[in-house]
């Protein structure tokens, strides 16, 4: 299928792969029988699903399979930051059935009462999820959200270029890195990194601590050549930067082009994030949304995401499925810390929380920092 055609690496013949699940899911009900056997599982009456998600984050194949299975037409509209999506829903934009907010955004949306609860009974495939990634602080008991993908924000570097092997964030302050660092253009992640370097809470709201962080960041500024949240990997590949704070996805993409890229969680700690499916209060086709969440958790559907996008998949059944059907891809998935961080890595990873009123402080800090 052309949608997947451009996929160049991982070596797995992705282009030829997708059709299989498509065909199998056509005769879907069989394997999912335990779920579909549930008498309570209602077939959605809606014929449309308005999915509002990150750009290039949901495989076309998955959507096609869903449409084939339920005869529901999917409109996929995209945003490129949580806040863009939040801004629109917050303003009262309606019509969207399914959104993909990150952890701290879920908090903000719940606080503004923008999401509607979901009935886990309608989502039998929830059991496929790895318990490590359910029942998180931002949504205890998953009353409103279903994990979609997860990942980390940590230190990526090109081991052939760096003057020395960085072990901690502090190493980045070394003058040898002058004009060689890339940072996510994200006030929370960068400030959080600074806070961690200072041994402070990544989600601190204490003005004094934030001020320290600012000083620290200002010192780092000469070493930073680029702030970019979209494709920081490119600068790593071209060698314009040697190291920097990036998403695991970026690191993975960089690795595909350049095997010398390493991705570590420095000893001070690093970042952790979860993207979730959620249903806005105003959703006109909530039933379709629920159906999709359940469908998306089917191993052979869920794995499509991993095959196309280099993030981590919270669906353990899916990974099993991958191991069985596409060992080479599974291999490269598990081999690299970006997609499959070792436990000690995960242990040090801290997720960003919504800091409420303090957001203004962060913004002010960011403005001051950049406005220097």
């Amino acid at each position, binding site marked *: 299928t052309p949608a997947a055609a451009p996929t160049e690496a991982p070596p797995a013949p992705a282009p030829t792969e997708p059709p299989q699940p498509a065909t199998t899911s056509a005769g879907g009900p069989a394997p999912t029988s335990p779920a579909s056997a549930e008498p309570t599982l209602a077939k959605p009456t809606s014929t449309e699903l308005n999915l509002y998600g990150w750009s290039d984050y949901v495989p076309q194949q998955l959507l096609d399979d869903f449409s084939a299975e339920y005869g529901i037409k999917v409109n996929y509209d995209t945003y490129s930051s949580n806040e863009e999506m939040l801004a629109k829903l917050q303003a009262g934009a309606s019509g969207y059935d399914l959104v993909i907010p990150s952890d701290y955004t879920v908090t903000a949306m719940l606080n503004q009462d923008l999401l509607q609860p979901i009935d886990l009974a309608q989502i039998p495939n929830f059991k496929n999820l790895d318990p490590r990634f359910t029942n998180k602080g931002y949504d205890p008991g998953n009353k409103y959200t279903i994990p979609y993908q997860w990942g980390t924000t940590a230190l990526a570097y090109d081991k052939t270029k760096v003057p020395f092997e960085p072990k901690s964030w502090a190493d980045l302050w070394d003058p040898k890195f002058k004009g060689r660092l890339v940072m996510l253009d994200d*006030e929370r992640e960068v400030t959080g990194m600074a806070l961690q370097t200072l041994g402070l809470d990544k989600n601190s709201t204490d003005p004094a601590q934030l001020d320290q962080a600012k000083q620290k960041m200002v010192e780092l*500024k000469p070493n930073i050549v680029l*702030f970019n949240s979209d494709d920081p990997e490119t600068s790593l590949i071209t060698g314009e930067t040697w190291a920097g704070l990036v998403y695991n996805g970026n690191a993975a993409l960089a690795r595909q082009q350049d095997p010398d890229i390493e991705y570590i969680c420095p000893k001070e700690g690093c970042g952790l994030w979860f993207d979730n499916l959620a249903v806005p209060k105003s959703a006109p086709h909530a039933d379709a949304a629920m159906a999709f969440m359940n469908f998306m958790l089917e191993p052979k559907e869920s794995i499509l995401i991993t095959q196309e996008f280099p993030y981590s998949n919270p669906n353990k059944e899916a990974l099993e499925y991958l191991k069985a059907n596409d060992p080479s891809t599974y291999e490269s998935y598990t081999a690299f810390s970006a997609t499959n961080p070792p436990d000690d890595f995960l242990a040090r990873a801290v997720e960003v929380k919504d800091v409420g009123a303090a957001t203004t402080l962060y913004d002010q800090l960011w403005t001051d920092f950049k406005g220097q």
Partner: protein
Amino acid sequence: MASSAAVPTDVKRPSLLRLIRENKVAQGLTLISPANVYLVLFMVVPLILVGILSFLSRGEYGQVLFQFNLSNYTRLLDPIYGRILLYSLGVGVATTVLSLLIGYPLAYYIARAPARQRSLLLFLVLVPFWTNFIIRIYAWIMILRAGGFLDTVVQWLHISDQPLHLLYTPTAVMIGMVYEFLPFMILPLFTSLEKIENAVLEAAADLGAPPYRVFLRVTLPLSIPGMIAGTILVFIPAMGMFVIPDLMGGAKTILIGNVIRNQFLTARDWPFGAAASMILMVLTMVFTFYYARRAGLSEELVV
């Protein structure tokens, strides 16, 4: 109008038609009203909303609280915003001046070219301007980045075998900004330069002025309206622009455009964002009006 009653054909016509026909003011209002109504509805009213918004305050989770206060404006008094505004002005001015310097000779060349070629040359200036903004920027990034097109050329010409590392520098930002706004400068310049008759230039030469003095004393002054129009069309958007500085400059600095955008899209402090944009708008409004008055803006903007 008494006499008109004597004219049967007129009595027959619907009185409204007669009113319109005989009343120039009514005609003018009829023609302008669609635009006015539309703009009031879809520009002014929304802006009033923003105006109101700028006096409210941010709730803990980024929602808007209906508590009237001035804090958003007082917060703008922080010198950092002054500095950012100045910096943005700087970017705007630099872009405008560079576009003027680069665009003027081109506009001059086109305006003085044989009539047959003119529209073609002008149309060639416009073509790239019809592609997608973000794609144009990425094209430039591809050219400027290390090992990109420019480096290849430079190495091929043996000028230097080291990457130039142009990307993520102020130079890169200017290359992108000027590229983006050049057409807006060239169009008005062209129209005002084209209006200058050859005879006037010949007259100057005839009176003993060598070419460079003809240019300085006659051509240049006569093209001022075009320069003013171009300045408005370039300076205003250039000042609010932030995408190019972010993508090509490495986002290491923050511009007034970023500030406003961040309030709506990261800090989620809409009231403050509204206040900031209100100030920016007032400033540009004043600027535009002062200038537009001095040069019939519309007259110079012939495409």
